[in-house]
């Protein structure tokens, strides 16, 4: 290869290399631009931090359980396991719960009584909506007309009658009890319910919610439905 040819080849190859690198650069950059402003990023950061602290809390709790297991002598192991079991039962709603909370009374509105309207049963959609509003705050437990509402519960409209866990909910008035982890949480939820639009939604159905002030002790009944374990099997000792 003569010197002149060599130079031209070099130049052309340089251009080709440059184009290749440009293409590589362009293909490797994300196609969607990050258009979040400072505020949006701060919001997301706050969300992540909240998850972080929740996870830390859970880890701490599990660590404590683990520490209590390791510290125990053989005689007390059964007791510790029983404690864990009780805790899980409580979490699942299989045991009566007492805690800070408040009572909500669902009753026909005075106007509907004055006009002589017939009191209709509560609609399942409205009740589901109400539960969604309550569940915007974490850790709350519910009892609807003396039927414990857990993660296993269901709300159905059966022949025009509202049922929770398959049991009829009486036509208003009836009571809904809400228990929160702390009295502060309870107050927060109370204020949230007072300010939310859910009261208007109930009023459209000629019902009013009378929310009593949070108190320290409200007792919820236990879940009576039992439960079916479809996927887990009990392990025998030999295995």
């Amino acid at each position, binding site marked *: 290869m003569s010197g002149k040819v060599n130079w031209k080849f070099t130049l052309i190859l340089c251009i*080709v290399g440059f184009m290749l690198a440009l293409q590589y650069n*362009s293909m490797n950059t994300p196609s969607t631009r990050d258009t979040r402003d400072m505020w949006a990023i701060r919001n997301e950061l706050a969300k992540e931090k909240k998850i972080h602290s929740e996870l830390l809390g859970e880890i701490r709790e599990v660590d404590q359980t683990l520490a209590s297991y390791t510290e125990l002598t053989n005689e007390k192991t059964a007791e510790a396991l029983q404690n864990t079991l009780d805790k899980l039962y409580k979490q699942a709603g299989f045991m009566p719960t007492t805690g800070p909370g408040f009572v909500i009374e669902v009753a026909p509105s005075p106007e509907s009584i004055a006009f002589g309207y017939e009191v209709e049963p509560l609609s399942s959609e409205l009740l589901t909506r109400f539960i969604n509003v309550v569940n915007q705050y974490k850790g709350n437990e519910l009892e609807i007309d003396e039927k414990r509402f857990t993660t296993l519960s269901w709300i159905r409209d059966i022949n025009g009658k509202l049922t929770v866990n398959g049991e009829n909910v009486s036509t208003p008035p009836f009571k809904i009890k809400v228990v929160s982890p702390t009295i502060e949480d309870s107050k927060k939820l109370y204020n949230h319910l007072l300010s939310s639009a859910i009261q208007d939604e109930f009023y459209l159905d000629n019902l009013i919610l009378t929310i009593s002030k949070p108190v320290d002790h409200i007792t919820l009944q236990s879940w009576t439905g039992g439960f079916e374990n479809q996927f887990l099997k009990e392990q025998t000792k030999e295995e």
Partner: protein
Amino acid sequence: MWLPLLGLLLGVSLGLLSDIQIPQVYNNYLSIAILAAFDTLFGGIRAHLQQVYDDRVFVSGFFFNILLAAALAFIGVHLGLDLYLAAVFAFGVRLFQNIAVIRRILLAKWTSRKQNSSTNV
């Protein structure tokens, strides 16, 4: 022999370091231009190996092919017809042919060199 490779390296590093990004809309043009550039490059190498290399043909071919390919892609976009596929096809076929010819020439050279060395011994 090493100078062109050095040029390629220089070009790649320049491109990577400059951190220039081509907008998504023009990505098609750049990729087709790269294909055209490769086609001309391998054509040049083949011509050189066949001893029919011409400077002017090579350099003009390089730029002309790139422009033609980009123009085809441009017209294709405005006509709503994927004309750039024509360029991809043409250049792709030629690229394969050129590389095949280069391979044969190199193979022939290698075998003849081997025969020479064995006869010398």
